[in-house]
Structures are given as C-alpha cells and as structure tokens.
C-alpha cells in the first residue's frame, strides 16, 4: 500500500512538469504581453520606454529560458511576483496572511466549491437512487427534467434572475459581495447571518447546475447494480426492499461516483471564474480572470499550478478511496 502511494506520488512529478510546461507555452503563445496594458496606443510611450518595461519584466528573453527561470523558482515554492503594477508576490495575493482566513482568495474559492460539492452530493445521490428505483415513473421524469433544466440554464443568467427576485423585489438576500457595508457594527450572530446570506445564492446556483451529472451517474450505476444476481439473491433471502437497496446495492453503486468527484475539480475551478465574476466574490477564479485579461503571467501560472496539483491530488484520493471501498481493487 505504502509502496503504491509512493509510486503514485513519484509519478505525479513528471505529469505536473508537463502540465506547467504546456500551460506556460500556451499562455505565452497568446498574442499580447503584460506591458501592452501600459504601452499599447499610448502616445507617451516611446519604443525605448517599451523596451525598458519589457526588460524589467524579463520578457526580452526566449520563452524556454523564461520557463527555466520560473521552474527554478518553483522548486523553492516561490511563485514570483505579479506583473500587475502592485508587484506583490502572487502567493500573497491568493493567501494574504494579513487578512482573516475567511477573506483569503484561495480559501473563499475552496469553501464555495466544497460547500456546493457537498450539497450536490447530498441532493443528487438520493435523487439518483430514488429515480433508479422508481424508474420511468412520473417522479423519475420530473427529477430528470429539473436537473437538466439546471444543467442547461446559463448560470450567469439564472444568477441575475435570482438576484432580481431575492435581492430587489423581495429584498431577502444581498445581491453581491461577501459581506455588507455595515458588517463591522453587526452583532456576532448578525455577522454570521450576513456571511451566510451572501453565500446562499452563489452556492445554490453552483449546486443547481451540478446536480445533473452526479444524479444521472448515480441513477445509471444504481440501475446497473440492481440488475445483478446478488441483488436477486438478497431479495430471494426475503430482505426488505430498503435493506436491499441501501445496504447491498448502494455501496456498489457509489463506486463510480468516487472517481467522478475526483475528476470534477478542474471543472469547479473553471466554474468559479464565472460565478465569482457575476457575484463579485473575491476568490481565486475572479483573480484568474483578471490576470488573464492583463496577461499577468506569474499570477496565471500560479493559479494553474495550484489547479493542476489539486486535480492530481483529487485523482489520487479518488483512487485511494476506490481501493478502500472496493476490496477487489485493493487486493490486486
């Protein structure tokens, strides 16, 4: 087991280097440079001034040399400084130790994604199971339609509709941001509610769109399982339907879902970009979007590397979870 784990961790290194190399080249291939924001079509910039700026950012060297320099720093876990004019270390932008934990970008994105993932699982697993056991019933059709509406609806548009309903017409929930203007003067309970109320809409939107995938997987994997012989045996033993489904069938049906959750991490990071921009939430996705717009290479690379690491770790955890759950794989 330990040997397997070590082997897997060791294999992650070349994969990670490969991912960063390709990412690095692709973002440099995209036309434009970080200095364009300052320099393009600004009559006050002379060609010499442009060269000075490019040299200042190290952009005058070939891309492969720039990648080598980047890699050398990364080994020491130094992600460099942002190219935006504040020149802050990129890690500090994501994880600002001066801010309270709940205001750090990486934490905000992480928390939103974990929250919506938990909600997705909590809702989609029961939906999947029940619609499998009541296959082709009215209930099955209604749930299927509902989750697909969520899947098909553009999230930014649905978000705006809900903001209009709950933020303006009913006035129940705040529209955007993470906390209210008067947060500092609220009572402790008021502060907690203020934070929670700001999260309700974004988490709901993120979860609603994600229900379809997991619940459909759950449904089909459950359908697969209840056709197996051992389920027939269990029923033949005279067990109640509840025991058959929830003890015998569910455990086996859950296996594919473990892999699916591990694979969903890149999608979640991508989704955060949209959600955080629409709701004005200062997370990692919003920062990534702004960095791409200004070609802030070190910042983009930092977010992409963190995303790659999370994905690889997610895959590893999924495989480990699979091993724990399935003795057949464990013993191979």
């Amino acid at each position: 087991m330990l040997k397997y784990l070590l082997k897997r961790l060791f294999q992650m290194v070349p994969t990670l280097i490969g991912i960063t190399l390709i990412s690095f080249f692709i973002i440099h291939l995209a036309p434009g440079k970080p200095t364009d924001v300052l320099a393009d079509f600004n009559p006050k910039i002379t060609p010499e001034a442009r060269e000075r700026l490019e040299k200042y950012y190290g952009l005058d060297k070939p891309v492969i040399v720039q990648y080598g320099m980047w890699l050398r720093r990364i080994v020491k876990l130094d992600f460099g400084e942002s190219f935006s004019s504040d020149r802050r270390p990129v890690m500090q932008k994501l994880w600002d130790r001066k801010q309270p934990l709940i205001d750090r970008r990486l934490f905000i994105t992480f928390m939103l994604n974990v929250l919506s993932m938990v909600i997705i699982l909590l809702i989609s697993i029961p939906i999947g199971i029940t619609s499998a056991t009541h296959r082709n019933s009215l209930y099955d059709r209604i749930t299927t339609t509902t989750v697909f509406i969520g899947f098909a609806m553009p999230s930014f548009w649905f978000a705006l509709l809900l903001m209009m309903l709950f933020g303006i017409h009913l006035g129940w929930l705040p529209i955007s941001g993470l906390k209210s203007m008067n947060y500092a003067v609220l009572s402790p309970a008021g502060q907690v509610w203020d934070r929670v109320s700001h999260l309700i809409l974004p988490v709901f939107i993120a979860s609603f769109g994600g229900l379809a995938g997991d619940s459909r997987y759950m449904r089909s994997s459950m359908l697969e399982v209840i056709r197996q012989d051992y389920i027939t045996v269990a029923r033949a033993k005279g067990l109640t339907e509840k025991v058959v489904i929830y003890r015998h069938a569910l455990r086996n049906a859950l296996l594919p879902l473990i892999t699916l959750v591990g694979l969903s991490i890149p999608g979640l990071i991508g989704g955060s970009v949209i959600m955080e921009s629409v709701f004005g939430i200062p997370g990692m996705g919003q920062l990534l979007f702004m960095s791409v717009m200004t070609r802030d290479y070190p910042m983009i690379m930092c977010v992409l590397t963190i995303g790659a690491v999370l994905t690889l770790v997610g895959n590893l955890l999924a495989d480990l979870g699979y091993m724990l759950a399935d003795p057949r794989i464990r013993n191979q």
Partner: protein
Amino acid sequence: MRKIIVFCLLLFLLATACKGRPKAVMTPLPGNGAEPPEYGDALVEGTIGEPSNLIPMLAGDAASHSVSGMIYNGLVKYDTDLSVIGDLAESWDISPDGLVIVFHLRKGVKWADGVEFTSDDVMFGFKTIIDEKTPTAYKEDFLQVKKAEAPDKYTFKVTYGKPFAPALTSWGSLVVLPKHLLEGKDITKSDMVRNPVGLGPYKLSRWTPGQELILDSYADYFEGRPYIDKYVYRVIPDSATMFLELQAGGIDMMGLTPVQYTKQTENEFYRTNFRKFRYPVFSYTHMAFNLKHPLFRDKRIRQAIAYAIDKSELVDVVLYGLGSPATGPYVPNTWPYNPDVKKYGYDLEKAKQLLKEAGWSDSDGDGILDKDGLPFTFTILTNMGNNLRKNTATIIQWRLAKIGIRVEIKALEWSTFVNEFIDKRRFEAVIIGWSIGLDPDQYDIWHSSKTKEKEFNFIGYNNPEVDALLEQGRRTFDLEKRKKAYFRIQEILADELPYIFLYVPDATPIVHARFRGIKPAPIGISYNQPKWYVPKRLQRHGMEQ
C-alpha cells in the same frame, strides 16, 4: 411537482422583472438643492476593476488613477473649461523665452501624517519618475527637463532645453510624493503602494482586496474638509450585477451603459431616486486610411467617402444617441476645438461626383466602381470585442455600398491587430479610437517624423505645414498662439481627411439624488467631489464602525 414549482418561479420572475418597482429603497427625495451643505454620509461608487497600485506614477489602470486622484493632488490642475489653474502651486511664472517655469507652492499644506509638504517632495517625485529603475509609462514629459531645482521650501524651478507647452500640465499629480516616507526605499516594493499617505481630500482607511476600498475624508485638507465623510469603492466586476446593486441601494454611483441610460433607467423609480449626467468623454472614434495605399492617396477619394457616411446616423444607432459627431481630433466645447472647419454632410451626389473626377466609374455595370479594370474594394480592420466599432464598420460598409464601393470588415484580437497589422502597416483602413489628453499637443499622432514602427503616425501622414504648426503649438505658452495653431491644423485635417473623424462618445454616470452640489462641466462631474454633500435629513449611512 418540482417541475411545476420551477415553472411558476420562472413565470413569477419574468412577470416581476417587467414591472420593476423595487421596495428595497424608496426615499422620496423632494428638494431643490437649496439646502445648506452639511457634513456626513458616505458615497458608494461601483467599480468594475480593482485598483492595483495607489502610487500614481506606477499605475496603468483607470481604477488606480481614479482612487489615487482622491488621495493625491498635483501642482496644477485643469479648471472646468480646461484652462490650467493652481492646485498645490499657488501660482507660477514662465520666463519670456518659455524655458523656465517657477512654481510657488502653497504654504502650510500637510501630508495626512502631519508632516509639511515642501518643494523637496516635488523634487523627490521628479527624481523618482526619471529614474531608470522606476517602471512607469509617464517618463517622457519629464525627460525633457534639463534642470530641476528647489531653491527654498516653497519654490520649485524647472528648466527645459526647448520651450515645451505640455510641460506645465505634466506637473499634475504624478510627481507629488512624500519624500519623508519613501526616500531610500524601492518604490515598487513600498508600503505606499497599498497604504498611501497623501494630502488630497480623502485618505485610505481600509482596503479589502477584491471587495472594497474605504476612504475617509481628510479633515485638514487644504481646501477644507470634504462634506461627505466616506467614499467607498465597491469592486463589482459584472456590470449587470452592478446595475442591480444600484437598484437595491448597494451603491450610489456608477457609469451606465447606453442601454441602461436610454432604456432601463427611464422610469419613475430612477427619475425620483437618481440623477443622470452626460458629457463627452475625452476620446474620439475615427476611420484612418493608410495614406501609402494607392487607393487612398487621392484626397478626393477620402472626401467622397466622408460624404457617403452619415455621422449622426452612427451616433444614433451605435451610441443610442449618446455622443456627438466628431469634426476633428478635439472634444467640442473645449478651447482647442475649432467649430468652423469644413464639414461633410451626408451627400451621395457629391460623393459620386468626386469619385468620377478621380476617374472611378462603374464601366462594367456590376454595381461596383472600377478604374483601369480594378474594382474599388477595401478592407476595414478593427479590434475584436469592441462592438461599437464593429457596428460602426457595418453601417459604413452598407453606406459605401450605395456609392459603389465594396467594403470587407475584419475584426482582430487587439494584440494581433496592433503588432501584425498596424505596426507592419498592413492595412487599408482601420476603425479605432484615440483618447485625447487634456493638453492639445498631438505631435506624436500627426508629425511626419513619427511614422516608424510602433510610432503613432501609422497612416504615414505628411504635411509640412502641419509639422510646422505642431512644432509651433508645443513651443509656446501663449494660449492665443496655441489656439491659432491648433485651429489651423484642424482646418487642414478637415480638408485633407487623413482620418474621417466619426464621433465622440458621452460618459453617462448616474448618482443617487440625495447628493447635492454636483455641477456638470465639460470635464465631467467629479472635479468638485469634495464639495458634494447630503442634507442631514437624507443622510443614509450614519455612525458606522
């Protein structure tokens, strides 16, 4: 069941969305603005981008400049009619030959930490901006300075190699920095980047990254304490979300899009609760010809195209009427603007006649003009993502088809557009915009020496008279002489038409109606922001924190 609920919810959403009478904010706001100014309240402005750096000379983005403009002042500033008036400098003298400017600074002005502002601070800022190691885009004006001196605490003297009229206004807010806090430090790593100490009307109190910046009024501000106690910038990257926040009372001020200005705010709610403003932005959109291209060498061709384009149609359709037709490279109602230049009204007959004179006619009857067997077709390039320009190009394409010119439109990603096409001169015509500096000097755009790659006379314009006038305009401080030079330049440009000047768009901010003291002027509304106030009975934000 669930499906029905969702369906009902959607119906309800649609139904309510159309009615649009929110109850979140309803403060009836009568009042004629005659109430006396009072201190208090906060103004919350929505901003799409977050500032990145609050040291003005290091910042490149609009958001940073807009916030640091509240925190720092300059030696001079623009008055409402664009003439130059003193700010931190009480007055200044210019030597008769125009080579020396002596600024007499205000006495008793204090930085927010209590230290007095002196000429050393200006000297320090000047040395910093011309320093090789300072990554700034605003160096060039200061490299023209031959010598800078600070003979005493309240005098600052600069000497130029040649008279340089834009020099005066370059001493705005870029170079006033607190020497006592920055000396000997690497400015790019300084704490001042995010925790500035300034001497302007407001000072930064808290910055929560990605969320908001809260500025407190500076009680010892040299022009008097601002009436509004807090100025808050809320970062909301999505403009639709920002508009909803405006309606819900989450923000008091934002810039509207044309649709929001002309349609979504045209109802009772907005009329009672908000005030909209409209004034020209300092920029213009134009169609530029590659004058090296055989098709556009002939002035008559360019004039014919100008006659075939209906500028007011462009303003009405593309900008929803929120703009004005442009006749030259200056904004209407500012002093360099010449209203009496040759204008090209929409006139198809004149256009056709000019083309005929130039030798173009439809000899093969296919609807497209030709000359020596070649059809008259060209491509308009513009940058992707700017729908205003793309729509403009489409309308021009349709108009030119009427006089027998076939136009193709190509939209390119910005960097490709600039690096591969503009810089390499691989274009026939482009539609782009210039933002106009507040000083009328446009040497870099029109002078015949500025045609190399990466320089801005990319159309290859060459007119010795214009060259001389540009030189003349930047070498004198005499406003009348400058005005004469720039008026003449506009006459020549209007006749030769290296560009077809299309339109000047309007800025369209909206501000909550409880704010009084706003006086719209050609340079906008925010110039007198410290004098805005809210009558006591209407103040919304009380003793927070």
